[in-house]
């Protein structure tokens, strides 16, 4: 972004001081843990209907265990997402993309990047908020109930997953349409042949 400052850094062809971006790897953990956390709370809520299926499959299953998965996965998603957002902002600062290209959603690279940045902070706040909410349900409000989560919580989880889908698509567009931090893409823009240089 501050091109003369960035030139003082010792960066590779991908614009990063290391060969592979860190943010997209942490994203696997954020999304996987959050989505499966909500999914297991849904499984826990509808346990009555699933009991015969688990019995048929000879898989011992207890309702409270599903809520344990929902809780611990959500806590882990919260913790890891601080690092996901931090790595994302660091790599955004070093991002370089062609300014004339438009994405499938008709955004420029800078618009996509800004919306992905805002979305990242918003999602971090939502994930942490959901974890706090989940904790209150588990240990305070519903600690004596067999159904540990509120309907509103599950609904909020599904809405957040939809935000994640939009947000993730913006991130995918940064990678696959603007070639952000892509070694082969940067080499092509420099007029080099990745097929020769990356052997």
């Amino acid at each position, binding site marked *: 972004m501050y091109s003369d400052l960035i030139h003082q850094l010792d960066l590779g062809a*991908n614009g990063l001081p290391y*060969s592979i971006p860190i943010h*997209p790897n942490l994203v696997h953990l954020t999304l996987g843990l959050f989505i499966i956390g909500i999914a297991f709370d849904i499984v826990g809520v509808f346990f009555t209907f699933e009991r015969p299926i688990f019995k048929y499959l000879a898989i011992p299953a207890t309702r409270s265990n599903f809520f344990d998965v929902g809780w611990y996965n959500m806590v882990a998603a919260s913790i890891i997402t601080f690092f996901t957002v931090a790595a994302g902002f660091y790599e955004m600062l070093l991002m370089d993309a062609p300014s004339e290209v438009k994405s499938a959603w008709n955004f420029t690279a800078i618009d996509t990047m800004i919306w992905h940045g805002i979305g990242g902070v918003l999602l971090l706040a939502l994930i942490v908020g959901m974890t706090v909410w989940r904790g209150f349900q588990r240990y305070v409000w519903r600690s004596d109930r067999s159904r540990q989560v509120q309907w509103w919580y599950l609904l909020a989880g599904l809405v957040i997953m939809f935000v994640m889908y939009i947000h993730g*698509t913006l991130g*995918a567009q940064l990678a*696959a349409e603007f070639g952000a931090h892509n070694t082969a893409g940067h080499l092509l823009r420099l007029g080099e042949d990745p097929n020769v240089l990356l052997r």
Partner: protein
Amino acid sequence: MFDNLLPPLNEHNLPYPDTIHPIVVHFVIAMVLFAFFCDVLGYFSRNSKLYEVSWWNMFVATVSIFIAIIFGQIEAGLAIAYDAVEPVLNLHTIIGWSLSGIIAALTGWRYVIRSKNPETLPMSYLGMGAILTGIVFFQVYLGDKLVWVYGLHTTEIVQAAKEGLL
């Protein structure tokens, strides 16, 4: 002769908007790594609730990896892999298929352990979990290389490959 029966491909050389394999692998990577983490934490804190958390996460990983492989094969086939990519893509494919066996076997073993006594975990299982974690890290590294170093399915690389520049 069957060309006209196939759906049209976009600028990512895909019949649908974006790659799906990197999304499905969320549910293998996150679940395997978190399962191992919970096993270790459960072992040292003697909290057997965490063993349940890791068992169910491994259950999800086992189902997910087969879906990941299906999309992985489709997208590998459509990747227009140039010569330099080929060894990495081959290794990623072989390890991916092997992981389906390894993860399914480990989950099966876990099922037996859990059926006998859900409150304890043998050290040997933890050791296998550590090895699996190592293989998953390496596999993620290879997949990262395919996307971030070689740029498979990115518009610039697809266009260059179609124009015969690679």
